[in-house]
Structures are given as structure tokens and as C-alpha cells.
């Protein structure tokens, strides 16, 4: 079983592969290899049995010089192999345990148990068998056997010695007899008679007489003279043997006897004696032989061979013991090697599929759903692998579907998030206040405009609407938030007036229900609009209409009135002085008031028919300087100071209308100062907002906050004189320029009017004061 990717296209994503994911060699059952291994094992055992069976027939020398070596070499090799296999397995198991591989402990235990189950009996059998071999070998060399074989060998040897001594003695006796004879005589009968007695008496079987003659090398050389053999003696097999013995005796070697095996199965024991004359001169050699029967010789040889075999066996006892021990050790090692291999094989076969399954499960758990196992066996583990791969396939398919769903969900979430951000941005930017209230009556969304309009902080979100709006002037919102909902009917819009820092703010309230999928009420949305500017514009428009009608209706009769008055004045110019004075006074009053009314009507007309500004790029500082220059020397106790920005961009404006605005504000300031005080005209450039500000501030008594908004309403004036249209015209001119005018308190005292006009250019920041 081995790991493999499900398909080439479904390889693991980069970076997600395990660092040590080295592909493992597939582990497969190989029946042929197993059979070959078993066959080799059986063959080795059969060979050993055969060798062991024939070991008794092999020479001890061969056993000790060859077999023992071969067995020892094989034993050593098997021992080294076993140690190597065990050491490798132990090291592998230690490494696996150190690396924390799954089933390492189980595998180690399994291998140890299998090894112990084999090793312990094998070692026990080896110990017992070794002792058995030692005992058996010792039994071969027991004392009775020693004595018996030694005695037999001594009997045979003593017999040979006796016979050899007899032959030697008899041969020496014959040599002495022949010392008086002439070995060179032609009458051989004399010589034959001299030695025949020994043969006749069976003291010797064969007597050979040699005459010594000088040889080529100066040494005496034996020449056969006569030989006498008994009738029982067979044919002399080889005269060479007796001649060599004779030559050896003639040369003076002391040990002149020998044995000669016969073809008939017997043996000849031969001895040689030098024939010497009385003066000691060697004239010849007598070789006497006695024949041992084949049966006798064979028995003696047999006893000797048995003795020699036994004693040689004793000599080779350690080597033979070693041979049998080596046999036994070899069988033990063979069993151990086989058992070790089998144990490791079984452990691997059992644990490896489980390990692979565990590793694959971890891979799947780590998200590598394309990880697969390769089926290596056709047994239950193979079926398990198939089931695992099927499960992995299904998991991978589920994972892919899940990932697709996740992608879709993320995309939808992103869309929703974009929409939410867009909505939030809109709600943040929109001037309309928006408040959402859930079904439980808690505030959900409270956009900045709503916070500003209602004077609430962001902490109001999440609190019950009734609690937040329950106080005073916000009570209508609480009513809207808690008003019961009737299906198909919407709540009526409301208007409320709030006081914000002394200013009256008019708000329009509207509520819209939020429906869920089942059309049930899930909450409501409150919309708050600041309609103060709208109301104000409506008022201005109304006043302008009033002014236009007033101007039209009033101005028409003024001229006839003025003309009538002037006619009366001319008619009564010739009247008496008292009458003329009275008429002059009355007509003068009429004309004066008519003039005043005309002025008032002209102002009304101007307010009603304000022309559109003719905007041209204008240097504001130059415009202000020229305008303020009109006041130089007019008011001794009023100082007009300027605080201009270092530079201002040119502003597109109608210079005449803006000049009128500035004059109006400065006039109001001088009047507020009661012609004594300081007026500061300041300019600012707000590059970020793209605006230029003109500020007119005085240190007069100031204006009450509640009156500030009313200042710009037509016909509202804090002065005892005037039409009350000045600031209304100011606001209209500034509004026509796309700007705004605000009034506030000056620091530390007085009033501060701020005109903000849009500009397109930029200028460096800074101020210059005059």
C-alpha cells in the first residue's frame, strides 16, 4: 500500500504538502519470492542434514580442516546478517519512536514479541543441544573404551614385536653360521643346507642369502646367492624389498627390519643380518622373513586401525565438537534469521497498512483531500484501502462543493458588505437623519445626521428608543417609534421644533415600517429632515412677494400725494404768513414722509427684485481695502482693523453686491458699537473646503443667541430705525453667490459675522495684519 495522488490534475496545492512526504516504496506480497525463500531454506536444511548424516564417514582431518571452516564461515555470515537485520530494525524502530510515527510502539512491541517467541526457544534449544553434543562427544571417549582399544593395540603391537625379534634373532644366528662359509662358492647346496633348518623348523618362512660385492660407488652391493622358502610360503612378491633391506643392513644401518604386505593378504616380517667372517669382514647379508597369515595380519591391522581411529578421533575432539556445534548453531541461526525476517515481515505487513491509513487520515484531516492510498494487497487491508479511497473521494467532492459554496457566499458577502458600506457612506453623508428601530424597540442605526439633528451621541444606538426619545422635545420620536402598526397604513409625518443652542430647528419626521419575508413587522425606519432652511426660504419668498405688492401698491399713490402737497405749498405761498407757515410745515412733512416712504418702497423693491450677480474674478483683499477706505476719517472713535490672509485666490463674485454686503455688515457693527470700538475685518482661505471666508467682528454688546437666526429674516431689526431688510439682503446676496453667512459670538465680546464664498484656486496659508 502506498500513497498516491488521486490524479495528476488533482495534485496537492503548493505549500500544503507535508515537508517529509517522501513517497514510500510499494509494499507488495510476492508469492514467488516467498516460495523461493522457503525453498532455499528447505534446501539449506536438507544439505545440512545430508552433510551431517555423512559426517561420520568423512575423515576427521577433512572435517576439521574444511567442514569446520565452511560451517564457521557460514555461521559467522548468518550471525552478521542476523545482527545487521536486528540492529537495522532496532534503529528503525527507535527512529520511528523518536519521530513519533504512529504505530511505532505497536510495531516495536509486535516485533519484540515475535522475536522473543522465536529467540527464547531457539536459544534454549541451542543451549540444551550444545550440552547434549558435549556430553555425547565425551561419551565417545570413556575409560573402558580407552583401555580396551589400548590393550588390543598393545597385543597386536607386542605380537609384531615378538615376531620381529624372533626373525631378527634367527636371521642373526644364520648370519653367524654363514660367517664360516664361502658365499662365493658354486656349491649352493652347502649354503642351502645351512639355512634350511630354520625354514624346516618353521622359525622362518623364507631365507635369502646375499653376497656382498663392491659396487660402482665403492659401497658393498648385495648379490643374491640362494634362497630357501617353506612350502607354506607363497611366491616372493618382490625381491627388491629384500635387496633394499640387505643393502640397508650392509650399509650399517642399525634398524634393519621391515614389514611387507603380501598380495595374498598376509604380511612378511623381514630382518637382515650381515654375514661376517671371523675377522669381521662383511661378506654377505642374510634376510630372514616370517609370513603372517592374512587373517592374523588383518586382525592386527584392524586392531591398530581401531586404535588409531579412536585416538585420532580424540585428537580431533574439539574440532568435531565444533563441527557438530556449528551444525547446530547453523540450524539455530537459520531459524532465527527466518523467524526474524518473518517477524519483521509480519509486523510490517500488519502495521504498515494501518500506518498508511493513519497517515492518510491525517492528510485528509489536514485538508489534503486529494490524498489517496494505493492498494498493495488483495486481502482485507486492500478492501480497507478501497473503502478509505471511496471515503476520500466523497470527502473531496463534498469539500469542493463546500468550497464553491464558500466562494459564492464570500462573493455575496462581499456584495452585501459593499452595499452596506455604500449605505453607511450614504447614511454618513446624507443630511437626512436616519434611525432604524428593531422589533424590540431598540435603536439600530443612528446616522451622524440624525445624531446632529437630534443632539444624540453614537451611544444611543442599541438602547431602547423609548428611553432615548422619551424626554421633552424628542417625545414625538418616541411616539413614532412606539406607535402601533396597522397593516397597509403608514404613520403620519410630523414636524417638531427643537432648540439647539438658542436656535430653533424645525424637523420633519416620517416613519416607515420594515417588513420581513412574512410581511411581519421587523422594525421601522425614522427619517428626520431639517426643514429650517426650507421654512426660512418659504418665509423669504413670502416676504418678497409682500414687498413686491407693498412696493407696487404704496409707491403708486406716493407721487400724487407728493405732487398734491407741493401744489398746496405753491397755492398757499401767497397766503398770510401764519397760514403759509402752517401749510409749508404740513406740506413739508407730507413731502418728507413721502420721500421716506419712497426710500422704504425702493428698499422693498430692491429686496423683491434682487438682480442676479455678475460674477467676475475679483481680488477680495483689493475689494475689501477699497470698501473699508470709504470709512476713513468718518468715525473718530471707531477703529477698523484688517487681518488678511497672506494671499487669497481670485474669487468669482459680483464686486458691487459683495461691497454692499460688507458695507451693510460694517454699518451694523458701527451702529452696534455706538460709534466707539474696534471692528476687525478678517479673511481666511480654506483650501481643503475650497472656500474664502470674510469675517466682520466687533467688540460691541453682541446679540443674544435666540435672536441670531431671526437677524436674517426680513423686517426683523434690533435697531429703532431701519427697514429690517439689510441682513436679509446680505444673506440673499451671499446665497446667490453659492455661499453662506453665519452669525456668532465674538471672543471675548461682540458679534462675529462669517461669510463663506466658494473659490476655485488655492493660496498659501498665513495672515497679515494691518
Amino acid at each position: 500500500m502506498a500513497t498516491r495522488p488521486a490524479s495528476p490534475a488533482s495534485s496537492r496545492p503548493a505549500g500544503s504538502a507535508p515537508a517529509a512526504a517522501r513517497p514510500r516504496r510499494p509494499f507488495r506480497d510476492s508469492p514467488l519470492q516467498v516460495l523461493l525463500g522457503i525453498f532455499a531454506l528447505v534446501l539449506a536444511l536438507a544439505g545440512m542434514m545430508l552433510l551431517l548424516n555423512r559426517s561420520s564417514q568423512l575423515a576427521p582431518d577433512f572435517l576439521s580442516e574444511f567442514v569446520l571452516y565452511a560451517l564457521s564461515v557460514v555461521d559467522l555470515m548468518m550471525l552478521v546478517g542476523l545482527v545487521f537485520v536486528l540492529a537495522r530494525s532496532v534503529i528503525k524502530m527507535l527512529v520511528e519512536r523518536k519521530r513519533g510515527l504512529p504505530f511505532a510502539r505497536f510495531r516495536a512491541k509486535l516485533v519484540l514479541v515475535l522475536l522473543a517467541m522465536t529467540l527464547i526457544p531457539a536459544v534454549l534449544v541451542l543451549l540444551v543441544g550444545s550440552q547434549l553434543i558435549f556430553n555425547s562427544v565425551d561419551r565417545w571417549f570413556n575409560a573402558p573404551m580407552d583401555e580396551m582399544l589400548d590393550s588390543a593395540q598393545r597385543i597386536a603391537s607386542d605380537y609384531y614385536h615378538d615376531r620381529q625379534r624372533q626373525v631378527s634373532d634367527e636371521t642373526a644366528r644364520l648370519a653367524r653360521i654363514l660367517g664360516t662359509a664361502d658365499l662365493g662358492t658354486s656349491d649352493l647346496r652347502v649354503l642351502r643346507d645351512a639355512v634350511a633348518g630354520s625354514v624346516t623348523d618353521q622359525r622362518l618362512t623364507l631365507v635369502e642369502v646375499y653376497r656382498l660385492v663392491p659396487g660402482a660407488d665403492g659401497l658393498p652391493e648385495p648379490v643374491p646367492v640362494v634362497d630357501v622358502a617353506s612350502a607354506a610360503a607363497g611366491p616372493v612378491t618382490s625381491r627388491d624389498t629384500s635387496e633394499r633391506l640387505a643393502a640397508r643392513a650392509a650399509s650399517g644401518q642399525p634398524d634393519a627390519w621391515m614389514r611387507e604386505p603380501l598380495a595374498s593378504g598376509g604380511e612378511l616380517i623381514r630382518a637382515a643380518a650381515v654375514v661376517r667372517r671371523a675377522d669381521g669382514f662383511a661378506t654377505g647379508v642374510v634376510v630372514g622373513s616370517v609370513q603372517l597369515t592374512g587373517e592374523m595380519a588383518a586382525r592386527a591391522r584392524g586392531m591398530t586401525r581401531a586404535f588409531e581411529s579412536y585416538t585420532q578421533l580424540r585428537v580431533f575432539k574439539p574440532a568435531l565438537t565444533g563441527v557438530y556445534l556449528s551444525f547446530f548453531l547453523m540450524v539455530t541461526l537459520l531459524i532465527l534469521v527466518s523467524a526474524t525476517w518473518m517477524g519483521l515481515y509480519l509486523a510490517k505487513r500488519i502495521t504498515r497498512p494501518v500506518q498508511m491509513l493513519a497517515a492518510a487520515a491525517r492528510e485528509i484531516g489536514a485538508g489534503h483531500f486529494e490524498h489517496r492510498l494505493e492498494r498493495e494487497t488483495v486481502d482485507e487491508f486492500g478492501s480497507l484501502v478501497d473503502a478509505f479511497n471511496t471515503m476520500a473521494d466523497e470527502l473531496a467532492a463534498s469539500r469542493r462543493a463546500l468550497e464553491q459554496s464558500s466562494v459564492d457566499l464570500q462573493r455575496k458577502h462581499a456584495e452585501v458588505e459593499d452595499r452596506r458600506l455604500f449605505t453607511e457612506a450614504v447614511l454618513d453623508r446624507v443630511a437626512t437623519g436616519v434611525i432604524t428601530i428593531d422589533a424590540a424597540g431598540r435603536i439600530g442605526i443612528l446616522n451622524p445626521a440624525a445624531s446632529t439633528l437630534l443632539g444624540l451621541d453614537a451611544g444611543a444606538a442599541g438602547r431602547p428608543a423609548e428611553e432615548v426619545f422619551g424626554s421633552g422635545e424628542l417625545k414625538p420620536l418616541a411616539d413614532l417609534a412606539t406607535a402601533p402598526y396597522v397593516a397597509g397604513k403608514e404613520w403620519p409625518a410630523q414636524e417638531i421644533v427643537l432648540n439647539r443652542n438658542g436656535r430653533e430647528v424645525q424637523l420633519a419626521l416620517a416613519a416607515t415600517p420594515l417588513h420581513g419575508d412574512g410581511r411581519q413587522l421587523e422594525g421601522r425606519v425614522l427619517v428626520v429632515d431639517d426643514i429650517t432652511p426650507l421654512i426660512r426660504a418659504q418665509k423669504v419668498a413670502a416676504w418678497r412677494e409682500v414687498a413686491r405688492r407693498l412696493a407696487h401698491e404704496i409707491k403708486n399713490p406716493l407721487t400724487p400725494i407728493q405732487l398734491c402737497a407741493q401744489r398746496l405749498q405753491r397755492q398757499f405761498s401767497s397766503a398770510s404768513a401764519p397760514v403759509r407757515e402752517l401749510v409749508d410745515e404740513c406740506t413739508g412733512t407730507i413731502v418728507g414722509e413721502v420721500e421716506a416712504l419712497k426710500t422704504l418702497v425702493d428698499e422693498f423693491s430692491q429686496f423683491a427684485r434682487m438682480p442676479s450677480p455678475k460674477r467676475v474674478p475679483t481680488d477680495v483683499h483689493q475689494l475689501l481695502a477699497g470698501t473699508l477706505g470709504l470709512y476713513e476719517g468718518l468715525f473718530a472713535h471707531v477703529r477698523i482693523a484688517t487681518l488678511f490672509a497672506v494671499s487669497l485666490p481670485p474669487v468669482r463674485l459680483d464686486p458691487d453686491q459683495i461691497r454692499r454686503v460688507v458695507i451693510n455688515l460694517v454699518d451694523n457693527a458701527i451702529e452696534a458699537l455706538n460709534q466707539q470700538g474696534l471692528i476687525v475685518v478678517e479673511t481666511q482661505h480654506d483650501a481643503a473646503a475650497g472656500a474664502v471666508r470674510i469675517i466682520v467682528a466687533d467688540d460691541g454688546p453682541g446679540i443674544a443667541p435666540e435672536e441670531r437666526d431671526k437677524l436674517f429674516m426680513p423686517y426683523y431689526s434690533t435697531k429703532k430705525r431701519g427697514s429690517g431688510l439689510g441682513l436679509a439682503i446680505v444673506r440673499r446676496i451671499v446665497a446667490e453667490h453659492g455661499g453662506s453667512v453665519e452669525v456668532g459670538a465674538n471672543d471675548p465680546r461682540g458679534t462675529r459675522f462669517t461669510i463663506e464664498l466658494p473659490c476655485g484656486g488655492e493660496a498659501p496659508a498665513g495672515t497679515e495684519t494691518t
Partner: protein
Amino acid sequence: MPGRLIAIVLCAFLAEAGGDGGVEVGAVARDGQVYVSATAPDGLMSDLEEAISSGLATTITYEADLREEVGIWFDRTLASATVSASVQYDTLTRRYQLSRSVDGRLADSRVCEDKADVKRFALGFDRLPLFSTGRLEPNAEYYVRVRVRTRPRVTFFLWPWGRDAANGVARFTFIP
């Protein structure tokens, strides 16, 4: 513990390789030949006595090397010769068949009945011209190393690899 085990094994190995020592070696350079004499210790004979008595053909081999010392490297072997003394005891006739060969050539052969003769014959040789002095440098130091091996060998029953039964060295200065 492992260090101690290794030390024991090492000592045993060195003892095995070193042999018993004790061969008396004599070397004389004369007449163009290096005459070598060697006498093995008596103990060797007692080790072989049982094998000889059993009738086994027993051989004592003397491997003689003419060597020259080399400073910090292995000594150089200039020539080698092998002298073998074989003893075969006939348990029936109680006689010993002795033979000696030099480099495989039979040099001596005899029969005797006396153990003392066997001992003298087997346990050494006297003034055998084993090497020629042709390759020797005048006034140089040489030595003859003689290692003795026996067959059958005296072996441990589970470790058949034998060792030199004995060895010895004789130094001489070659003066032409």
C-alpha cells in the same frame, strides 16, 4: 561498558595474532647463503604428542622469512622458505617415519623408534641454507623470522582459525 568490551576483544585478538613465541632462531650469512637454524619449544611437542601417537601424519611447518626493517612502514620480506618436518607413527611396529622437505623438496627421510630422535627431528633444523645473499646489501641489518605451524592444528571448537604455534626472530648484519 562498550569500551571495556572492545578492549577485551582487542586484547584477545592481539594475543591470538601474536602466538606463543619461543622459537630459537639462528641466522648466519656465509658462502653466499643464509644458513638458518630453528628450534621450537618443547611444549609444542607435547601438544602434538597425542596426535603423533594416534598415527596421524603430523607436520610441523617452519615458515622462514628473510626480512628487512623499514622505518615507519611494514618490514619488507626479501625471501621466504618453508621447511616441513613430517612425523608418522606406526602404532603396530612402534616406529616413526620421519621426513623433512625444504620448499617442497624432500631433504631428509628416516625411520626411528626413539621419541627423543623424533623430538630432535621435528622440533627444529640446523643450518639449512634457505636464502641466497645475492639480494642483501653489505653491512645492512636483516632478520629472519620463523613462524611455526602445526597440522593438525590445536583449535578452539567454535573458532577453527588457528594461530602460529610459535615464532621467533634472529637478526644479523650481512658482511660479505
